[in-house]
């Protein structure tokens, strides 16, 4: 045993001396050293009773890399037990290193002294190691609790909140799981029963999680997947189909090459900027019906949140038609032969159903298309408009105005056409010049066709 410890010390001194060490090597080292330890320690971890003295208590092996530091800083403060994690902090923080730290703690003391502080410290450090959504890690952390010690054995113990600190620690662990939305599994339940018994507070918390989580898992009518696509074009495609509210809408990706002299970073001057845009057939129809004398606006950027990421989209819209210009199109009965689109029922005996609210209808004008881009500058948006022009020829005659503003955004209504930042454009025959709203460098028109 002694030679094993010396071997450990030598190896670990080498470890400490080197600055960069991969996590896999660490794991391998520990595994090799731990295999030399007596077997008694790790097979009976789960069902051991700690009220008797274990036979090998004197020969508790402590990994040598922690011996010197622990002896020196024997601080007695009540703060979290971060020292184990701080030592690992010098290396790369992964799940393997986190597991290693937990293993070191487990093997350090058969009685698991200070496990409550250790678990609180581990819960705090989980986001740094990137394991806060990993159920296996939570179960492993729950395994740190000594089993069967905190289970109440008679009614008095059950009545008086047996081992309140440990119960609170268990509850906090489950609460962190609940905060990250992780559903516990059967192993968690078995561990909780072994540690705290069936009637403890952690078990109650587990029961509450298992009751409410399934009820609320699928109530989002617009679900966002946990793993959002990495590629910005795919992300934009997903979010555009989400906000389009129309299953017939099609996503098209427009390419822009920024001119080298306009772009300050010469590195990226030759990379195309991809701008996904979306338009549905009904929007195309609306745009075709739009009168060329009234302008259309490109507004943005509007924020859209998908879990923790915010993407920005731009909208092509027009003001609502004034009531005198509105043309009431009669219902075409042949548009749908399966059922009548218009029903004129004269029900005398019934009061009837009043389905609509007594609220004036908000008419904010039609939305013709949307696009999503992280660079909201003129070049990109102009390319989008020219791309849209291929399917909607009316855009060639309609003046396009840009309203690009950051801050809390809403679609601007018709009353705001007299804003000071607007610039009227002359509708040219083929290429219209679009002037930016904000003060930007004069950019050349992007009428260049591909």
């Amino acid at each position, binding site marked *: 045993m002694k030679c094993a410890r010396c071997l450990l010390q030598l190896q670990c001194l080498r470890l400490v001396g080197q600055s960069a060490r991969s996590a896999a090597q660490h794991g391998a080292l520990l595994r090799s050293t731990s295999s030399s330890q007596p077997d008694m320690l790790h097979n009976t971890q789960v069902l051991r009773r700690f009220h008797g003295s274990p036979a090998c208590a004197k020969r508790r092996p402590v990994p040598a890399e922690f011996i010197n530091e622990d002896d020196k800083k024997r601080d007695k403060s009540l703060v979290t037990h971060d020292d184990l994690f701080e030592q690992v902090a010098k290396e790369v923080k992964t799940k393997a290193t986190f597991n290693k730290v937990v293993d070191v703690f487990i093997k350090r003391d058969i009685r698991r002294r200070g496990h409550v502080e250790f678990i609180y410290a581990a819960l705090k450090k989980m986001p740094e190691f990137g394991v806060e959504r990993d159920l296996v890690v939570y179960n492993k952390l729950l395994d740190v609790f000594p089993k069967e010690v905190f289970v109440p054995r008679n009614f008095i113990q059950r009545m008086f909140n047996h081992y309140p600190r440990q119960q609170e620690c268990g509850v906090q662990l489950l609460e962190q799981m609940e905060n990250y939305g992780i559903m516990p599994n059967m192993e968690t339940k078995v561990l909780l029963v072994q540690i705290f018994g069936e009637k403890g507070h952690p078990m109650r918390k587990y029961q509450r999680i298992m009751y409410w989580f399934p009820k609320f898992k699928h109530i989002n009518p617009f679900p966002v997947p946990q793993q959002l696509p990495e590629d910005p074009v795919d992300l934009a495609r997903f979010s555009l189909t*989400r906000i389009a509210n129309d299953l017939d809408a099609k996503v098209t990706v427009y390419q822009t090459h920024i001119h080298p002299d306009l772009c300050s970073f010469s590195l990226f001057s030759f990379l195309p900027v991809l701008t996904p845009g979306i338009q549905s057939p009904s929007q195309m129809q609306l745009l075709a019906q739009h009168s060329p004398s009234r302008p259309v606006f490109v507004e943005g950027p509007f924020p859209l*949140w998908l*879990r923790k990421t*915010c993407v920005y989209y731009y909208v092509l*819209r027009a003001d609502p038609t004034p009531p005198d210009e509105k043309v009431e199109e009669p219902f075409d009965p042949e548009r749908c032969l399966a059922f009548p689109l218009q029903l004129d029922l004269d029900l005398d005996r019934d009061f009837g159903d009043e389905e609509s609210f007594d*609220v004036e209808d908000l008419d904010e004008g039609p939305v013709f298309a949307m696009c999503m881009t992280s660079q909201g500058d003129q070049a990109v948006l102009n390319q989008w408009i020219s791309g849209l022009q291929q399917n909607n020829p009316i855009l060639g005659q309609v003046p396009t105005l840009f309203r690009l503003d950051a801050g809390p955004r809403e679609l601007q209504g018709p009353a705001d056409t007299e804003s000071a930042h607007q610039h009227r454009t002359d509708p040219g025959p083929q290429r219209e010049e679009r002037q930016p709203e904000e003060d930007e460098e004069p950019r050349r028109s992007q009428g260049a066709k591909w």
Partner: protein
Amino acid sequence: MSLPKISLPSVRLLSSIHHHQQQLLLPSTSPLTGPKRAVSQGEYRRPGQPKVDKFPWQPINFGFSKGFDGVKKHLALLKKEFSDRWVGPQGKPILEHMLEQNQVLWEFRGPESLEQWTVSSDQEIGGQSEVHLKLGKNQNTCLLYGTLSSTPPRDGETRYSGYCTMRSKQPLASFDRKKHYDWSSFNTLHLRVRGDGRPWMINIATETYFSHQKDDIYNYFLYTRGGPYWQDVKIPFSKFFITHRGRIQDDQHPLWLDKVNTIGFTLGDKADGPFQLEIDFVGVCKDYAHTEEFAYEVYKRNPEI
């Protein structure tokens, strides 16, 4: 002194025991210093809030002009109440009251509609989120916007932070008597909103009898789609679950619609950054197709030990 706050994080599930212990172990002060809050107001002090050491009559404003305007306003309200009784229940003719299927409760058509709402954020407990409420363009909608920041305030006891909320004020009758909404003839909440994709929560607070029920709120989620289109959200009242101080309760019961006090919207989705929500109107409607009484189990699910 009191329980050590550093090693024991704030206890929530065992709150009833620990709050009483904390109160008992506070250092005693001499009887001539500031007043203690009465039992009826509750002994719970919000974490991070300084203790208010004023006598109950000190915050009241005893000015003359305020009194004169107040008397005028309240007498007008009283007269309206008397005359409304002659028209019918709640000032509507009986036939209209019986047959109405949709009722618009709040629509934001002018600046005075914003007076009915209160906004608050976690700046009350020392956080850094901001929230503002203003009328949208065209004076037709309201825009609730701001920034969320989930860094908890450093007062040693708060662990989570980052929320913003908008709550309607309790309707008041003449002489500031509390009035309640009566939605017993409806069964669905109908909202027209335009959010930015964030998940909100709708809170409905009803009139309660016992003081322990003061913080009972019925909640449900409001998922916004985001985008330029308005979103019609219909939530039946049978879906609202009861929570107390933000913790969902074990004993659930359906929301009683006859004495509703306030409705509110909360955002606390732990995503730091700007947010906005536009609301066109809030109404209630009676959906004859919805026959569910309550969506959650009412029987005792966690029997006592």
